[in-house]
Structure formats: C-alpha cells, structure tokens
C-alpha cells in the first residue's frame, strides 16, 4: 500500500491504526489457527484428553500454517508491488 498522499500527521495517525490492527489480526489469526488445527486433528471424542498423536498433529498444523502464511504473504507483497508499478 502507498500512503504517500497522507501528510505527516495523517501518517502518524495511520501508524497507530495499523499497530492496533496488527494486534487484532494476530489475535484473530491465533483464534482461526486453533479452530483450524482443532478441526483437522481432533476427531475422537471418546476421551477429553489430547492424545499424543493429536498433539503432534496440532503442533505440525501450527508450524505449517505459519510457514504457509509467511510464503503467501511474501508472494502477495511481490504481486502487489508489481501491480502498483505497472499502474504508475
């Protein structure tokens, strides 16, 4: 994104907005991650305890999701930058 049309005061304000949003986004990511890994890994409700197999699945799921998001984010930023430069 390009905030160059904003003046200094506006950019300072946006930085605070973005900071808050990043906290919110992190919390939402956390919540969706729990949701996703729970849904993918837990299908046996004969016990309320997490089996070691389920636990390993949850840890791998968390790990893999973060790496996935990171890679998507990197490609997303590249594509976005390409689009910006082809417009101007």
């Amino acid at each position: 994104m390009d905030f160059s049309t904003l003046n200094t005061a506006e950019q300072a304000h946006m930085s605070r907005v973005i900071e808050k949003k990043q906290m919110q986004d992190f919390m939402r990511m956390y919540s969706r991650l729990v949701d996703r890994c729970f849904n993918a890994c837990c299908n046996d409700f004969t016990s309320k305890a997490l089996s070691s197999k389920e636990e390993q699945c949850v840890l791998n799921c968390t790990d893999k999701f973060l790496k996935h998001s990171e890679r998507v984010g990197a490609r997303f930023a590249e594509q976005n930058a390409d689009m910006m430069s082809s417009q101007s």
Partner: protein
Amino acid sequence: MSFLGIGGNQGAPSGGVNTDKIEMATEQLDMITDVYNRLVESCHTKCISQRYTEGDLNKGESVCIDRCVAKFFEVNKKVGQKLQSLGPGATGGAGGSAFGSI
C-alpha cells in the same frame, strides 16, 4: 485482564473513563465472543447429528460436547505455547506481512 492465557494486568486510575482501556476491554470481549462462536460451530459439526429427528440433545451428543470443549481448550493451550516458543518474529508473516511495504 487476561484472555485465554494471553494478556496481563494494569493498574487502573480511580475516576474518569480511560478510553484506551475501554477499547482494549471491548476488543477482548469481541475476541472471546469470536472464540465462543467458533467453539459452538466446531463442536456442533463434531457432535451433533444433522438429521434433526429430535429437539433434545441425546446422551452421546451431551458427552461429546463436554469432551469437545475440554479438548478445544487443550488445543488452544498447545497452539499458544507453540506461538510463544517461536517468538514474535516467526508470526510476522501471518497477519502482518501483507503490509510490509507501507
């Protein structure tokens, strides 16, 4: 204040409304509502038959719900620990990196 193991306590000034704190508490409330709604959704999918031949929860469904909620909190704890062990840098890509170029 603490949400699902995340967050901490801050002293409160007496009198007057600290809008930052209200905002934080409101966000916490939104988050906990979001988690509760996801939990309702997930355990519904895991435990409730979609045929709806009766309006009551049967014994199997009730027990499944109890275990489903307990297990969900276990998963929540494991994911939280994993995220903390990785540190703030490792999660930059998930939620933040789209704004990398600002």
